[in-house]
């Protein structure tokens, strides 16, 4: 009986040592998985923070997203081959709109996924690309979400998000490509600006509502 107690004590002690040492090691290597995990967890924490002004909350989440996503590469990928057939001004405007729209969309998505659990799968680094698997579990359904990253200095930046085999950037490219062919660049930019306005109104209102509902 006494032996068992000692064994348990040892086990608990060793696990707490390992537990304490693990984050230190991760910070040093700062692999893509560690970074994704830190970012997603920080966003979830922020979403769960009860007593915080919703505008501040939004700003913090927005900063987290902007620090970890390579929006310029994403915008370029979303325009694909058409990138070279539009003017420099149109490119700049497109990148600007694309970033805004992505952010509003992402914020909207997060609102829908507050009570779900996120788990982390494998990390795969090949040459200068990394792929990190995560899973969102919701009502018995496990949705795989894969982040694709590129190295930037000592960090990794996300350049695509793949949800259930569907690449977000490829999806945007197919939509933009179709609209470009039919209506042209000027109309695409106008449509995007209009959409962002609508999303901003919605997200602004719903982040407020969410906040109030939680207080009640």
């Amino acid at each position, binding site marked *: 009986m006494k032996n068992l107690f000692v064994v348990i004590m040892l086990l608990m002690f060793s696990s707490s040592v390992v537990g304490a040492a693990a984050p230190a090691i991760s910070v040093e290597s700062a692999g893509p998985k560690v970074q994704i995990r830190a970012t997603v967890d920080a966003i979830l924490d922020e979403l769960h923070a009860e007593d915080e002004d919703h505008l501040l909350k939004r700003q913090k989440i927005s900063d987290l997203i902007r620090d970890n996503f390579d929006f310029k590469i994403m915008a370029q990928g979303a325009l*694909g*081959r058409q990138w070279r057939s539009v003017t420099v001004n149109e490119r700049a405007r497109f990148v600007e709109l694309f970033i805004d729209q992505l952010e509003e969309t992402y914020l909207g998505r997060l609102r829908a996924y507050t009570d779900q659990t996120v788990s982390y799968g494998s990390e795969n680094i090949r040459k200068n690309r990394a792929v990190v698997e995560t899973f969102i579990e919701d009502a018995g359904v496990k949705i795989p979400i894969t982040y694709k990253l590129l190295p930037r200095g000592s960090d990794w930046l996300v350049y695509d998000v793949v949800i*259930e085999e*569907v690449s977000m950037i490829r999806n945007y490219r197919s939509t933009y490509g179709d609209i470009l062919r039919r209506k042209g660049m000027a109309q695409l930019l106008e449509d995007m600006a209009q959409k962002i306005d609508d999303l901003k109104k919605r997200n602004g209102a719903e982040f407020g509502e969410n906040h109030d509902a939680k207080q009640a």
Partner: protein
Amino acid sequence: MIRTVKIHNLLLIFIILIALAGPCWCASLNNVNNDSLMTEQGDDDFFEDLYGDDGDVDAIADPLETFNRGMFWFNDKCYFYVLKPLACGFRVVPEHVRTGLGNMFDNLKSPLYAVNAFLQFKFKRMASETTRLVVNSTIGLAGFFDLADSLWGLEKKEEDFGQTLGYYGVGEGFYLVIPVLGASSLRDGLSIIPDGYADPIYWLANFEATLACKGVSMVNRTSLDRDTYESIVEEQLDPYLFVRDAYTQHRRGKVAD
């Protein structure tokens, strides 16, 4: 009886047709696109490297776009005026019960997945799906609990006849929006018919009961969903294009795995 035989024959003809036409069609489509891309893309292999291949090669053929958009509109109305209200009403049932009900409907698909895994020589998956069916149907209380997954990590792996055809090189043909059921392709749409024969409900119940089961399953699934379709409609510049591409990418991923 005569009627079923006729449907059988028709189905067989259809399958043979796409089996023959599908690969050729796709091959020729790919060739055309690749040729035109070669000159235009030239040195620019950056995106190809980063995001797979170019969007134009990826796109599914959509010769019936006008019809498909009409069906998309129809399904959109069905969703907002019929399915969604029913699903909202169904939310009076506690969530864990609805999750269990969803598991039961999923469990009934295990035979389908097992058969199609077999047809693709994926014997491990076939064994896993068979185990899932046996375990979940018995100690999992008719599939209410997905014990095979929670106890042994035997996750559900969807394998349907469309994927089997894809495995044998049958192309998707073209995009097709099916009334009520939604996004599909010629290949996957026709595959719904053979898939139906692997459904235990079809063998156990009459037509009306089978239809009712499908309806309940659909309402239940929608009740558990967090407004995915609503977000798509709100967020996307053209929801039709979003769904078309997402469907295509998703199915291609499923065929490749």
